[in-house]
């Protein structure tokens, strides 16, 4: 049975690892990539169908071909309103994680806060990719990471230079290090 998936013609209904999937036509790698097909270890591109998609296709009798799934040019992705509480909570957890780094109480706590914040941020940005809050969160995260990396490198370079200076000036330290 031939399936036309959001304008991509020549797809074939098949099974992969026991799940219903569409097999992209040969030579359509770029188009398949844009339509959320995934490349499996055998090198071919498969789209794993949702339950609803699978049911819809199987509702057509054998011999009816091609079956159209989705309108060409439209987005197969979802759009939903993004809740505000998620980025706010993530920001609060990031702040808590950074603040608790300066305390020695329960040394694993900062890591837990930062991990939870990262998890929430990932959930928000992946689940609601079109939200402005998500884009801001990604932008802020990338900026903070770059700034922290630059600061880390600068601090290390400064410490190395101070250490070398100390070793040069300290006559009693000859032979150490």
């Amino acid at each position, binding site marked *: 049975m031939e399936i036309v998936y959001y304008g991509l013609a020549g797809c074939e209904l098949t099974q992969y690892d026991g799940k219903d999937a569409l097999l992209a036509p040969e030579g359509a790698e770029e188009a398949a990539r844009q339509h959320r097909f*995934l490349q499996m270890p*055998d090198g071919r591109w*498969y789209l794993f169908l949702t339950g609803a998609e699978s049911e819809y296709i199987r509702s057509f009798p054998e011999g009816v071909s091609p079956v159209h799934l989705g309108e060409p040019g439209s987005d197969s992705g979802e759009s939903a309103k993004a809740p505000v509480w998620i980025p706010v909570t993530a920001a609060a957890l990031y702040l808590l994680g950074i603040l608790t780094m300066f305390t020695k109480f329960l040394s694993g706590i900062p890591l837990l806060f930062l991990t939870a914040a990262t998890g929430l941020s990932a959930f928000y940005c992946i689940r609601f990719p079109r939200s402005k809050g998500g884009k801001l969160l990604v932008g802020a995260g990338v900026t903070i990471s770059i700034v922290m990396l630059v600061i880390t490198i600068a601090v290390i370079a400064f410490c190395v230079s101070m250490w070398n200076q100390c070793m040069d000036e300290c006559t009693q330290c000859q032979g150490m290090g």
Partner: protein
Amino acid sequence: MELRINTDHGVIAPYGMMILLSFLAGTGGLFLLNVRRGIRKLTALWVIPLSVALSLCGGMALTFLTSGGNMIGLSSLGGLCGMYAACGLTAWFSRQPGYGIVMTQNCTLMLPLMYSIGKVGCFLGGCCGGIPYSGAFRTVYTGAHANPVPSLPVQLIESAVFLLIFAAGVYGFFRRRVNTVPAVFLVSAAAKCLLDFLRASHQGQILSVPQILCIILIAVTRKRRGISFSQSAD
């Protein structure tokens, strides 16, 4: 030939630098593989910080648990669980069928490289050392983690073995050998289990905790081969 390693490292800890390098190489490779195989870039990007965070959490949690709450360190098996958890969570967030399988497979391919780089850090830092040994390349540690007894540089052996496993896995994967990923997982678990016998920490034990965990992983993987790792078009 004797290797003498001074574990007084000054301001830059070689162990920390190698762990950082292993994360950079591993998550970078994971990102590239994910995007190449059709994972959305935004999803593939978020796997990076999540896998670092969960790896650290998993690594520390496992050492905390296995030491009976006496110490916190970085366990490679805990880190492995963290990496897989990150892939699974990100796939769940995306709600895209198939993402979990693809990201887990890519993670399996990159883990041997991360372990290999991390083991170089262990060698330079003086931890996870080998059994007493007086042959070629025997290693003597001085400084903060001094050990005057020459030992086998098992960390370098592990690093070389896992680098080979990584190279073989990448080769098999790009040659489209369908069973590459489960083979990499099983061979890695078996190698870790066997090389553990050469560690100083294994002395006096029949089977160590990492070995028991590896055996469990091998058993579970072989049982689940038909569900998760074994890839075949029906």
